[in-house]
């Protein structure tokens, strides 16, 4: 048994990655999550490792069922991601993904807010490299927006935890609640990472701009880490139900309109998070089980979907729905895996999404939130449209002449196969997942009623798709931008910031000279012989500095004497 924060295994292991090449690198990147997994498996529950730093006792290894579950799925996803990114030759992405994964695992085991903050920031910084590594101008500016928002979230967390520490005298990470300003700030910090409505734009802005593997890795960690911390700190917070319901419903409109399939999947990510957020808001044991289970299955099928779209992008160079199509013949395996992912996210019976989403829906219905229940049902039907049907249809089946490509590389296929197998396996044997859940559960997903109602919902929703498509009502795939909240900071906000920057810097540059200008005019009245080109108008710094000295001296004298 090793009492050592398991996240650090990945973080330190990542240092070696740039040196390694080829299969050695592959083996190393696979051994690290595997080893960390075995370490966690061997750990007993409890607070196992504390560290004195910053004058605080930091709990770096709080092991319980909830943290175990999230760490397992993070490591699993890291493992699959490692296989998927085998073809990479650059020395930034692979270590960045490992550090990112390690930090996420580290964050999951944090028993206090300060160490959580540390790992929180590492995830932000490590992840931005996955976007920057795309090396396009769009990705670059998107990455900067992403980083600012992510770090901003970290800063809010930090501010919240300091205030909280100041009030309560400890920084333990337990239930937090919204009833104090510190708690509110922390809630906001978590909310940014969780892509709460209005705070979500970074996600749909940045994820589609990342590299092929980068988007897969990004989709795994940040948001699910946010789900984990929300479940820890804000379980049972009523507001979350409404936030979650909005999250589950509004992205489906964007997702159906968007052309870039990776952006579609980013919106669907928010929609799926909505289900989990609702469950956390309800906060009963069953609901929290549902949130955790859904996070687990969601990570895998969302990674699978992004991997298949990533494979398309890798082979064809585009992920735009309007330019893809008809690829079923050239990439049959990828198409098959994509459809398994699509079936999972649409929660077809016997796919992983079904067994987790059913818990959430039952929990919502059980607590009597009927409106929320209807919204979630509506969102489920929507999910089928924009992911379950739209992605496979536009990528593989709608005809598009002229694209002849090879099947995805073998490492990508293996990674997708693994994820697809898991999707089906969990769907068929849900008890495997249920045993891992934080609270005891005796939920039976496969009752005739469940299967039938879900099948009806999906089939009739699909028939609506067919009819609408035939009538031509179904929205066309357009090369376009659909406005989202980020408009506020990318148009007026950006102009405002530019304006402020220009004003500040010019104000700053001319402050000295303007003052001297005024002074010169004043002096000109007194001493005519200085002439119109008086030396006082000159901007050379010594003059203005000395003037500042005099001004400050007078100011201080006045202040002191008064």
């Amino acid at each position, binding site marked *: 048994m090793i009492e050592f924060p398991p996240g650090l295994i990945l973080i330190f292991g990542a240092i070696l990655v740039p040196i390694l090449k080829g299969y050695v690198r592959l083996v190393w990147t696979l051994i690290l999550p595997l080893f960390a997994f075995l370490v966690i498996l061997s750990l007993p529950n409890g607070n196992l490792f504390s560290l004195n*730093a*910053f*004058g605080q006792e930091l709990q770096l290894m709080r092991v319980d069922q909830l943290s175990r579950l999230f760490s397992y799925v993070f490591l699993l996803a890291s493992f699959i991601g490692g296989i998927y990114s085998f073809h990479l030759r650059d020395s*930034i992405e692979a270590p960045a993904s490992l550090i990112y994964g390690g930090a996420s695992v580290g964050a999951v085991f944090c028993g206090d807010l*300060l160490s959580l*903050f*540390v790992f929180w*920031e590492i995830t932000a*910084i490590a992840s931005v490299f996955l976007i*920057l*590594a795309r*090396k396009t101008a769009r990705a*670059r500016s998107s990455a*900067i927006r992403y*980083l*600012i928002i992510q*770090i*901003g979230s970290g*800063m809010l967390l*930090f*501010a919240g935890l*300091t*205030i909280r520490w*100041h009030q309560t005298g400890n920084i333990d990470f337990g239930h937090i609640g919204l009833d104090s*300003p510190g708690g509110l700030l922390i809630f906001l910090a978590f909310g940014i990472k969780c892509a709460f409505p209005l705070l979500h734009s970074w996600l749909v802005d940045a994820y589609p701009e990342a590299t092929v593997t980068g988007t897969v890795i990004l989709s795994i960690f940040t948001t699910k880490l946010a789900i984990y911390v929300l479940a820890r700190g804000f379980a049972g917070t009523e507001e979350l139900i409404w936030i979650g319901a909005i999250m589950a419903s509004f992205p489906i409109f964007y997702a159906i309109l968007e052309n870039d399939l990776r952006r579609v999947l980013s919106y669907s990510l928010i929609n799926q998070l909505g289900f989990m957020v609702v469950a956390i808001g309800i906060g009963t044991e069953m609901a929290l089980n549902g949130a955790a289970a859904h996070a687990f299955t969601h990570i895998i099928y969302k990674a699978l979907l992004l991997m298949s779209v990533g494979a398309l992008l890798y082979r064809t160079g585009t992920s735009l729905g309007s330019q893809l199509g008809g690829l079923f013949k050239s990439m049959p395996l990828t198409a098959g895996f994509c459809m398994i992912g699509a079936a999972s996210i649409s929660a077809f019976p016997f796919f992983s999404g079904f067994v987790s989403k059913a818990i959430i829906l039952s929990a919502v219905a059980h607590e009597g939130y009927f409106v929320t229940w209807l919204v979630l049902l509506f969102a489920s039907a929507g999910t089928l449209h924009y992911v379950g049907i739209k992605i496979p249809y536009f990528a593989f089946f709608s005809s598009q002449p002229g694209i002849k490509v090879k099947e995805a590389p073998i490492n990508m296929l293996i990674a997708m196969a693994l994820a697809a197998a898991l999707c089906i396996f969990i769907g068929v044997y849900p008890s495997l997942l249920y045993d891992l859940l934080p609270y005891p559960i005796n939920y039976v997903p496969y009752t005739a009623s469940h299967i039938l109602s879900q099948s009806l919902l999906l089939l009739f929703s699909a028939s609506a798709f067919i009819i609408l498509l035939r009538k031509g009502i179904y929205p066309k795939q357009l090369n376009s931008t659909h406005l989202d909240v980020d408009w506020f900071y990318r148009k007026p906000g950006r102009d405002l910031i530019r304006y402020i*920057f220009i004003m*500040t*810097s010019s104000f*700053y540059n001319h*402050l*000295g000279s303007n003052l001297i200008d005024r002074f010169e005019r004043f002096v000109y009245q007194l001493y005519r012989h200085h002439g119109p080109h008086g030396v006082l108008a000159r901007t050379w*710094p*010594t003059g*203005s*500095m*000395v003037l*500042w*000295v005099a001004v*400050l*001296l007078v*100011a*201080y*004298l006045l*202040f*002191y*004497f008064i």
Partner: protein
Amino acid sequence: MSFMQEHLPALQVVLPLVAASLCALFRVGYLSWLITLSSSILSFLVAVFLLLRVLEQGIISYEIGGWSPPFGIEYRVDLINAFVLLIVSCVSAVIVPYTQKSISARFGSTEQSWFYCMYLLVLTGLLGVTITGDAFNIFVFLEISSLASYALIAMGRDRRGLTAAYQYLIMGTIGATFIVIGIGLLWAMTGTLNLYDLASRLPEIKSSRPVLAALAFLTVGVSLKLALFPLHLWLPNAYAYGPSVASAFLAGTATKVSIYLLLRFFFTIFGGATFFTETPLPEILKILALIAMFAASIVAIFQSNIKRMLAYSSVAQIGFIILGISYATETSLTGAMTHMFNHAIMKAGLFLLLGAIMFRLGSVKIEELSGIGRKMPLTMAGFVILGLSLIGAPGTAGFISKWYLGLGALEQGEWWILVLIVSASLLTMIYIGRVVEVAYFREPTDEVVQLKEAPLEMLWPAYLLIAAAIYFGFDTSFSADLARQAAVLLVNAVY
């Protein structure tokens, strides 16, 4: 040995002074370097011994020439200046091994000797200002270090170094003269120049006009020396166009010593934290500090010369320190002093790394650095780590100091200051991020492709500082705890 121990305070200043004259005497480049190296390391050791002795037995008072204070000049070492002595001598000792490579590449043997002579004189002056307990002595040492640093800056590669040095000279002299005027007024009112004697006599006449005028002159003079907004205009050019070694050394030490002076004048002489609550000074300082934090950071973002960018960043960081001082509580002063220490480490390290880039590439223009991360991986990796520390990323030294500064603000219930600290750190992130982005995510230019990694002699001193920046991010028992003890002394005006 006991003789040595007894004369440690004098040795602290005399060692580099003698070494400086030796350099001037021999005028052989390499020999001068050896002299500089050995005397720097020795004075670092002396500073360590002094600190240990202070921790062990409290304040050390040393009478120069056997004339007893307040008539003779007294050197007095307490925890506060022992801490600063350590910062200054430590930064100097780390930088000297680095200098040989970069200086010998540019200067002939004789010029090298003069360089080292000036370097040692700066060191002498700074150590002298810190250790002395005599007000007029402060002025003399201040001018020794300033004059030598004007000469150092004028040795830059760029002709703009000359005008920068000239500006610095005018401003520095005015600043020093203001300090003398302040000291003169205090002397006229109390008849003593000994700082501690002054401190015991001043409370009776604290609100008389000459004393207040003296305070104003001292404040402005010291603000000029420490480059507090808006009196910082000399600093960017001086740091940008001087030799990299000089920038690193001055950025790490000179402003820190001026901050020490500010602390000494405000807290020791004018009676600790109570003085702060009685005057409008904290408000003025706080506003200036906040403007410095933001205005300088924003200007830094727009700089194309990275040395200039870092220089503006220094102005911003000084803002952070002054912000901590303006609260005058134990926690905030701990933050300010820790930041003094950490900033010395970080900025010196950053300038050293930039010097290495300058050495290889001949330029530190941001657009000419594209792709340099691939060609000089160690240098740029170091830059990133120190940059993170400058931003205040947790796990680095910069985080600790901002943590205490934030706490200091919170203790006063001013949580919005916390928000401002955080947003200023975000601005820091932007300008560091610009460099990182250019260095790692752009294709290398033709010049960059031919580069080699910086020579080892230049890298290891920088990495020593990087290691320190990380180490003090985790183990605060040295930096922050010592700073806290010093802060207690300052707040209660114990001397």
